[in-house]
């Protein structure tokens, strides 16, 4: 009797406990239960502006959310403060999260209807535009939103499905970030624009050989350079006009082969090190510690990286493929409004301020990329330091190249976070020797098609 009671109690307990986990995936759908949860979460990260000014009744409250580190948060908050001084009728509340958890947080907020009025998005803007959660800004152009000075290509980039849904907050161009000090040590001349992928593989190998154990020529950027490779071979990641994949399985095989061969030759970082010190984590990057000589990076990253090392870094154009470098100026990230915001006009005013205001530009600098208006670019170039000048020099080289070899602005695939995870796993499967390249690429392409179909 006693035992059966215990059994009963324990079974009940088990059901309840398992149920807790069982529903943890679900309740966001239910709406109500998560609503309070996620808004609380929002508040914990809230940085209250210093403004003591109690709402004068007319004051509108605007929530803004971005990702990044503390340094970026400081700059952003300062810029927001200036915005409030110039627009006393608006009170801005900033929230931020580290990039790793940012989009999960945003997704939860969107699902529960508590998303901020303005939030930053990166290359995954397509995903959000497709789900119809972004504010159509077209109505505010030339009124609250001044785009007269903004680059046409950037306006075009933010126009999805014929509606302006995204305002780029900074542009950059990807290139090969080089630790020139390591090249000096190895006694190899620093590469110049116009090199090819064969040069790249050979130089990587040389560096590894000359510097010995623990030093490598390059990071493995199969995933980050994927779209560049496609463009160099007149393909693309995502054919937006026809809403289909822009490449076939046969198109990507050579790219994976290239990296496999370069790795076997010894020029590439080991997969373990790539995992423990990923190139995207500026604090841990082996380029900073002088162990890896080259990687693919966005031009605006040079500032942050150079700030962390004594070694001299520089940017060189990406090696050329059949159609050229495949690199153009692209939006690094930008702002979108929430479709359900109660203050769309004020949101538009904030975005307009962000891209046009010279004071804001001075504070924000190149942190999110080069400013998207010509006036602010000139302004920043005027007070550029050595590192900034390197960036401007690089971006102007890219612009000049793009005049003779134009490439269309491209977008990421819908379902991008799942796609990039798949791509990363594929590279690791090859790197850790779990799969042959051929098999890995076949599986990768199959998986990509599935993800695309589920999200298109």
């Amino acid at each position: 009797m006693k035992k059966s009671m215990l059994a009963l109690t324990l079974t009940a307990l088990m059901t309840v406990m398992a149920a807790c986990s069982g529903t943890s995936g679900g309740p966001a759908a239910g709406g109500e239960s998560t609503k309070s949860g996620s808004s609380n979460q929002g508040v914990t990260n809230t940085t209250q502006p210093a403004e003591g000014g109690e709402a004068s009744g007319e004051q509108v409250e605007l929530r803004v959310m971005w990702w990044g580190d503390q340094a970026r948060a400081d700059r952003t908050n300062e810029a927001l403060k200036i915005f409030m001084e110039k627009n006393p009728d608006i009170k801005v509340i900033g929230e931020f999260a580290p990039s790793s958890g940012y989009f999960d947080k945003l997704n939860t907020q969107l699902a529960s209807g508590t998303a901020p009025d303005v939030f930053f998005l990166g290359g995954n803007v397509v995903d959000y535009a497709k789900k119809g959660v972004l504010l159509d800004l077209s109505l505010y152009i030339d009124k609250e939103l001044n785009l007269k000075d903004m680059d046409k290509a950037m306006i075009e980039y933010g126009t999805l499905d014929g509606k302006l849904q995204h305002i780029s907050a900074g542009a950059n161009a990807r290139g090969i970030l080089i630790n020139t000090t390591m090249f000096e040590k190895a006694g190899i001349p620093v590469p110049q624009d116009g090199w090819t992928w064969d040069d790249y593989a050979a130089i990587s190998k040389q560096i590894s050989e000359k510097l010995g154990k623990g030093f490598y020529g390059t990071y493995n950027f199969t995933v980050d350079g994927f779209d560049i490779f496609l463009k160099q071979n007149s393909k693309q990641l995502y054919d937006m006009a026809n809403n289909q994949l822009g490449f076939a399985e046969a198109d990507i095989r050579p790219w994976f082969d290239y990296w496999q061969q370069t790795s076997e030759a010894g020029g590439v970082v080991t997969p373990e090190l790539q995992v423990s010190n990923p190139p995207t984590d500026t604090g841990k990057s082996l380029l900073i510690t002088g162990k890896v000589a080259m990687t693919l990076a966005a031009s605006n990253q040079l500032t942050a990286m150079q700030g962390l090392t004594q070694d001299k870094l520089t940017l060189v154009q990406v090696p050329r493929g059949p159609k050229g470098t495949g690199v153009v100026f692209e939006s690094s990230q930008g702002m979108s409004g929430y479709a359900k915001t109660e203050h769309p006009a004020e949101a538009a005013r904030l975005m307009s301020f962000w891209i046009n205001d010279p004071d804001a530009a001075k504070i924000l600098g190149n942190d999110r990329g080069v400013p998207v208006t010509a006036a602010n670019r000139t302004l920043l170039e005027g007070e550029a330091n050595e590192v900034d000048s390197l960036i401007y020099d690089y971006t102007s080289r890219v612009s000049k190249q793009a005049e003779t070899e134009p490439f269309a602005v491209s977008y990421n695939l819908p379902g991008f976070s799942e796609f990039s995870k798949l791509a990363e796993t594929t590279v690791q499967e090859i790197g850790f020797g779990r799969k042959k390249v051929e098999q890995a690429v076949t599986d990768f392409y199959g998986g990509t098609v599935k993800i695309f179909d589920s999200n298109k």
Partner: protein
Amino acid sequence: MRKPPGASDNLTAYTFLLPWLFGFFCLTLGPMLGSLYLSMTKFNLLSPPNWIGLSNYLAIFTEDSTFTRSLTVTFTYVFLSVPLRLIFALLVAIALNKGIRALGIYRTVYYLPSLLGGSVAIAIVWRQLFEGTGVVNQLLARIGIEGPSWISHPDYIVYTIVTLSVWQFGSAMVIFLAGLKQIPADLYEASEVDGAGKLRQFFRITLPLLSPVIFFNLIMSIINSFQAFTPAFMIGDGRGGPLDATMFYTLYLYLKGFSYFDMGYASALAWIMLLIIAIFTAIVFVTSKYWVFYGDGKEGR
């Protein structure tokens, strides 16, 4: 005009039960049914769900290799961490049960990890310890072993997480300790007179009399371990990497739902997890009559 006594008794009982009933129906049963419904839809969080019947379940079982991999990882974790943690907890409990002084302090100190263990901070500490150049490898280097990169090689990272789980032996230990104190001392005295050694005492007296407690700890540990999330999320790269070696079931569920906008699929995964845990618990219960002794003489096989 008196009501029959039974009815008013029931009313009182239900009134007192009301808070619990409210919680059960609104916070447990409601969301559970909600997720059951969602598991049969395609739901991207932002637009209304579309009914697709059992397609999610079908896809999970027929064409999802990440699902099978995440099950493998989770089972490896459960089957390693649960026995190891229980054995460790039992050994420490026995050591503490020797009537040492300041028992309270030791008990508290050993219990602390299980309060902290699930936290993000400890997971980060673990990450630091087991890094390629972390403390663990430095110690190994002292004795001439070149340790692998525990957290960045897919073959080793799960063991790193298992050690974290074993380290949280505290709550099981406290329960074992209470169980050990219940075992009458005269049994040991009697067996000693009969010439039984320590080992024999352990297997013939301690273990059988402790079996109800082991039973309880086993069930709780299994349920907990299946639901492990934080260590995989923090010690791995948060995306199940490297190479899906930290793709615990709950992490996969989370990624599907909140990162990949596939809440219907995630709900289906959650229900499968519920079934798996239920099956395991049922197995333990069914086998329990062969190894759990309540010491009240009514085993009644």
